[in-house]
């Protein structure tokens, strides 16, 4: 057997007794006659099972105990030759360790970021809900007139959020009319319009007449398809509507 090969090489018997070893093997591992002494306890079964295979050549990973480390990963190349076998061990631990450390670091960072994002998302969605609730206050102008100014983009979520409060307040004050003011509304989403239609229908069923005010041409275009099914009035602005219904009431 060539002893100067630059890797640990052992010639062993069937029961793992070392017959011969390379210089590098002597250099890397504690001197012992039993190969199992330098194999990690958890790798014993694997080594035995592998050698029991009916093949002449095989390679597999094995944890070994070196002079420097109690656990080092090696790739074992085995060549069987009659009653004996040659075992060549090539270290792979270092490259793995480096990559593993990096992987662990990245994983940790990703988890932290995920977690923070999740928390921020939770917080943000609560803020959006709250902001939606506050975007449609019901204001009692007089016994007969209520005002519902809507702020921001008109979305389904927003109308769902304001509906509860608005219906409750309208039911308590029982006005003849509600002015829904669109002056503060930005974009209108299609789902938002459907939800608005439902809101108006509920008002109608409660016997409350709905007047839409402050509609921009863009808003009007969105509402046009529902114009005929809904019993609503339109007024240019809050000023006109108030003059018409509120001031008239006190004259």
């Amino acid at each position: 057997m060539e002893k100067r090969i630059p890797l640990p090489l052992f010639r062993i018997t069937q029961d793992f007794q070392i017959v011969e070893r390379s210089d590098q093997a002597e250099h890397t591992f504690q001197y012992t006659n039993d190969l199992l002494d330098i194999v990690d306890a958890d790798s014993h079964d694997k080594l035995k099972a592998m050698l029991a295979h009916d093949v002449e050549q095989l390679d597999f990973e094995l944890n070994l105990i070196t002079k420097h480390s109690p656990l080092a990963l090696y790739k074992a190349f085995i060549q069987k030759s009659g009653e004996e076998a040659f075992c060549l061990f090539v270290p792979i631990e270092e490259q793995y360790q480096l990559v593993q450390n990096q992987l662990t670091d990245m994983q940790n960072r990703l988890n932290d970021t995920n977690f923070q994002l999740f928390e921020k998302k939770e917080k943000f969605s609560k803020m959006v809900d709250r902001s939606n609730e506050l975007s449609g206050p019901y204001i009692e102008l007089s016994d007969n007139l209520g005002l519902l100014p809507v702020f921001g983009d008109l979305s389904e979520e927003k109308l769902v959020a304001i509906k509860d409060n608005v219906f409750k307040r309208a039911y308590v004050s029982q006005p003849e009319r509600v002015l829904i003011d669109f002056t503060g509304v930005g974009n209108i989403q299609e789902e938002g319009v459907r939800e608005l239609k439902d809101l108006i229908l509920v008002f109608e069923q409660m016997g409350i007449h709905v007047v839409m005010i402050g509609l921009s041409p863009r808003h009007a275009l969105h509402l046009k398809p529902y114009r005929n099914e809904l019993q609503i009035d339109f007024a240019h602005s809050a000023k006109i509507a108030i003059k018409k219904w509120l001031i008239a009431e006190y004259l």
Partner: protein
Amino acid sequence: MQKTTETFVDALLKGDHAASLRIVQNQREHHSRFTIYNELITPAMHEIGMLWQQNKITVADEHLATAVCDFVLSQTEYDLVQHSDFQETTPKAMFFTVQDEYHYLGLKMVSILFREKDWNVKYYQSNLSIDHVMEQVETWKPAVIGLSFALAYRIEALTAYLKKFSELDYEPEILVGGRLMHQYDFSSIGPPNTTFIENLNELQTWFNKDKTIRRDDSDGKANTSSVI
């Protein structure tokens, strides 16, 4: 869950985060975290260890599977975030892996199960030195300190930790977990209130016992309660 375990192992080894997560989320609809950890994730990781023994996969494959599994575990923890407002009275538990020990999934599952039971939990997966751990313990004073080890040669490190814990000026409960628990007799090392936990079923037993003691706690000393 046998069939699911096979599919899960497959997804982990492929490094398929999405598929792995989907499997666990589907199971989560019908099963508790405990059941999923005990009957899906743990057997899956054991199976992966076996595949290495059989030379069917490499250590690199194992590491990838561990990373994906870690990701999935983190996801199962997210819906507990809302419970993070702790009061002073909430019992505290701290978990960490022994230095240079990379088998951390078991400990992570344990830490999540503690959080699920409304404990105030700190979990350190990073490679903390023993001094750093002791500093944390002394300032935060957790009622439970949990650590795990899986590598036989790290037993000296474990002994060092346990010795340090017995020198503390208060008596935290120590939980030591790991698959090697049955191979050694640890009774001589560590403070008297050390429990060695080999698997999640034993953890469950510990939880049940802990519940009884804590019920008594509110009335006075442990096991003195007349209320049954």
